[in-house]
Every structure is written in C-alpha cells, then in structure tokens.
C-alpha cells in the first residue's frame, strides 16, 4: 500500500471535539452526514477542500479527548488515507486502527499544507515530494498491524474469531 495525496497541516492538541464536534452528536447514527463536518472546528472549510487520498498532518497529542470512534471514522469517510502526527492520544490511536485508518508517528515539523506526500506503509517511509524529505515512522505493535491489515477490528474478529496477538 503506497497512498499518495496532499498534506493538510494542523497544530498540536487537535481534540476529538475539533474533529467531531459535540453539536453534531445527533448525527452519530448517520456517519456520512457527520463526515461533512469533519475537522470543522479546526478548519471550517476542510471537509469541502479535502480530496480522496489526502493526509491529515498534526503536531503532538493528536486526537486527545473523548473515546468517540466517530472521530477517526469520519476522517476515513472523508477520504483521508492516513493521519501523521508527532504523537497521538491513546484512545484515538487505538480507535483509528480499529476502523482501519493508518496513524503514523513521525516528525511532522517540516511538512506543510499542500505538500505532496507518498507513504510506503510496509517499508515505513514517508516521502515529501515538494520538500524532498524522507521520513520514517515508528512501527506498530504486531496486534495492531494484524487489525489494520484485516481492515479494522470487526473484520479482524470476523476473520480469526478472536484477537490475533502474534
């Protein structure tokens, strides 16, 4: 898998309230509709600008706050192929893998909005074609690789009947 697309850069501490605002709580059973508001309180025009395959690039502690799995789900539904950040909040990180959204920990300081990125998920390499950057990202634990490769937690359990840790 080598997704390609443009980067959308955000700052530190992007909370789940910024990703999936509480005022759209009533849309939690209508996720395609909720996805029209993804990242709305961080950038109100993001949902209309993002293209299929693009990347969200954050700073540190991306996804802090609530356990709402709706947050990574609507990022994925908006067509985003992966989220890159210097660090992730724990529950968001785990939820992202569970919904099949790659979350990659790397030094995102030099990446800017509009940069063309190419990611090799197997080799663990991120290429920034605009800035001629080659970044590496930390490997996931085996159990998370298994879940991600199966397309998320539900698909993983459907396939194996249980968690496959090794």
């Amino acid at each position, binding site marked *: 898998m080598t997704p390609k697309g443009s980067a959308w850069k955000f700052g530190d*501490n992007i*909370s789940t*309230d*910024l990703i999936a*605002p*509480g*005022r759209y*709580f*009533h*849309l*939690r*059973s*209508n996720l395609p509709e909720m996805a029209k508001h993804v990242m709305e*309180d961080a950038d109100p025009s993001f949902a209309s600008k993002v293209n299929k395959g693009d990347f969200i690039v954050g700073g*540190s*502690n991306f996804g*802090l*706050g*609530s*356990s*709402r*799995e*709706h947050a990574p789900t609507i990022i994925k539904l908006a067509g985003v192929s992966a989220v890159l950040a210097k*660090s992730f*909040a*724990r*529950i968001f990180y*785990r*939820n992202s893998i*569970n*919904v099949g959204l790659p979350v990659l920990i790397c030094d995102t300081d030099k990446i800017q909005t509009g940069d063309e990125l190419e990611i090799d998920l197997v080799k663990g390499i991120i290429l920034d074609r605009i800035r001629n950057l080659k970044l590496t990202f930390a490997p996931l*634990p*085996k*159990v998370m690789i298994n879940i991600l490769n199966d397309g*998320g*937690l*539900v698909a993983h*359990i*459907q396939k194996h009947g*249980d*968690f496959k*840790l090794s």
Partner: protein
Amino acid sequence: MKFCETFHLPDPVFVFILCQRRDGKFKKKTVLNMGKSLSEIIISQHCQRDVKAGEIVLTPVDVCLLQDGTAPLAIRQLEKLGLKKLANPSRTVFFLDHAAPSPRRELSNDHKFIRDFVAQTGAQFSDIGGGISHQVINEYYVNPGDILIGADSHTCTGGALCAFSTGMGSSDVAVAMGLGKTWLRVPESFKIVVRGEFPLGVYAKDLILHFIGKIGADGATYKALEFCGETVENMTMSQRLTLSNMAVEAGAKVGLIAADKTTQKFLKEMGRGNKYREIKPEKDAVYERSIEIDVSRLEPQISFPHTVDNTRPLSQAQGVKIQQVFLGTCTNARLEDLKIFYEIVKGKKKNSSTRVIVTPASRKVYLDAMKSGYIQAFMEFGAEVLPSGCGPCVGVHGGVGADEDNILSTMNRNFRGRMGNPESNIYLASPAVCAATAIKGEIADPREFLTVKKGSSAKSSKKSSKQKKKK
C-alpha cells in the same frame, strides 16, 4: 514537584533508578525489578500469570460500560460480528446520560435502539435521569481488582476503587461485551506521591488541575498513574473519584488508587461490602517516574481555555468576567461537591449577569441533595437544577454558551467547542471557586467565604498527622 527518573535495562530483572533527593542531588540505585505495580497486579490476576509493563496480553473483562453517544455504534459492530449474546449481561451496563432527556428525534431514536437491545440481551440499564455513567457504575457495579472497559474516555474514574478501568472506542467495547475479553498493553506506571494538608478552600480538583498543568496534557500518555501518599490516603472516596476521573486529561490509561479502608467503607455504604479486598502495590514495585506533590501551599487552580494543562493559580485569574457557571459532571457533582457549593451560596443571590447551572451526578446524589436542602438553596440562589446526567458538558443541550461567553465549570475538559459553541471559552475550577464566582460574576476566591470551617479532607489530614506522630 520532584521527579525521579527510572531507566529500564534490557534485562528485566534489574533496573537502575536515578532519584533526585530533596537537596537536589541525584542518587543512583540498582534494584531488583520484582515487585508489581497496581496495574501489573490486577492484569496478572486476570491473565493467571505474572505480567510486566510493556507486554501485550489478552485479558478477560469484568465490566463493560456504554453510553448513548457510543452504544449505538457498538451495538451495530456487535451485530456485524454476528454475536447475538453478551458474554456477561449482568455486568454490561448501558447508560442514557449524554443527551438525557433527549433534545432531538435522532437521539430519541438512538435511545429507543439502545432500550430494545437491552431488552433483547438482558444487559443492565440506567435510563435518563439515572445519572452519569461514571458515577453510577462506581456506585453499583465496580469492585477493587476488576477490569472495566468503557466506551467513554472518563471510564478511568473507576481507578479510585482500584479497578483497572479504562476508556476505549465502540468497536473495542463491542468485542469485549461479545467475547468477554480484550487486548491490552500492560502500562508502565507513574507514582504520584501527594503529601501535606489541603489549605482552606483547596481540594482534590485543584491538586489534579495543578498536576496536569505541570505534567502536560500528554505528559502521561499510555501510562498508568498511581496516586498515593498521606493526602490521598486521607481523601474521601468522592475526592478520589475526582482525581482518577482526570487521569485521561494527562493522557493516562488509568488513574489507580490502592484499595483500603476508605474503599471498604464506600463499598459497605453502597451495599456490597463483601466485594472489598485490599489491593496495594508491592513494596519493590518499579515506577517509570515518581512525582512528589506537597499540597500544603497549593492555591485554588484555574485551567484557562482551551486546554486542561493551561493551568494558573487563582491569584492570576481573578477578575475574568463569567457569564455562566456550571456545577456538574463526573468530575465534581457528587454530594460532597454540592455541599461545598451550598456552604458558600446558601442564603445569597447569584450575580445578575451570571447564569448558574447544576446537574447532580446521579439520582442518588440528587435525592440526597434534596434531603439535605441543597437543591432548594440552589433554586433560591438563582441556579437552574437540571436532571442528573452529563448536561452541558457534551455540547448537546442544557447550557450551550453564546459567542464570546466565558463559562466557569467544574468539568474535566475545556477544549474549544466542548460545550457546543467553538466561540465560547471554558475555564475549569473546583466547586468552591465556581460558587464564589457565581456570587461575584467574575472568577473569585472562595476563601473569602470560608472563614472558619475547613473541608473534610483538611480535617482528616490533621487527624492522620497526629496518628502518624503517635506511631
């Protein structure tokens, strides 16, 4: 705050600990890495073998918690898995607390969907007005040594009862309620040693805001916090729940407190004293980091918008005009919190430019507050008392701020947009600061209203220092 750093060697049997002494010098110690932290004890008991921090394990789950914002997705995930039965219906608990009563037809339909599922599966259920999940689950379901998985980030509140209690998403909880198990990475632990007697007008909430301000909103990401020391030992269960509740605001997985006589007393009061067992960390348990906090000179604390770690002492916050005060949430809406607020506002009138909203944490708390006369006093003060539930903390209903409003709240997070409007500002504080502020209309010092009486924690701390001297 003092920091002692621990360095793990590849050989798990020995570790070096570099400790900073009180004089500031560092001392290197080599210790046998044999003892278990609270997390390691609880997870080892579930896995029926000795587990250490860093291991990834498959573990049985004792209790599952879901609320109306996360349950519908979890139920749909369970249906996709084709699982028709729950592994443990008597300890799988659904709460309608986030939008309770429902303000919209979509949410009413979600509630109906949850009620139907509960009826089909025999799961436990707390309907609208029953209270906030984290309050009710600890009142009636969680026991020391349990593993609790909740589809809500503040599930970590259960750490106060020494349960390994952590928040996850809907899919994880769906699998846990279907299969009765989950996977976990056994966390490294930070030991937070709290000493000293709380000064007048300073509470557990100020301590945890101060701690998060120092360590940062991601300072403990993936770690387990263990709160200990004489101040924590002397805390009531209500205050302990406030501490554990906010562990996630430092990024932590759990915020554990050893199970002791206070835990036993709480369980007895809630009618399940037989579920008590003492759990304390082993003497030679290894902590990745040890942090000491002396609360004896701590001021009331305020978290400024828009992050919890943007904390300042009250002296640097006074004078900020406040349009809405909110006393509620899983952090600070227990009877003890309501009492602190009551002691300050009784017989007074709220400031005419400040709205005041109160949501008791549970039906039990609401009833007890009525019996104690608090609710009547709040109404006479000019506050609106809403049904037990999450209320305005979720940004759905019950007190959405206007653009540019400043809101002072007892809740646990102040992210932009949290209360439904990204153009309003949320400040966090204790119930006492909220009470003083509701009177003055701007962030105010509760100590002005607290001249003689001290909080129960201060009293109990005193008692314990005497006991200590005797020893």
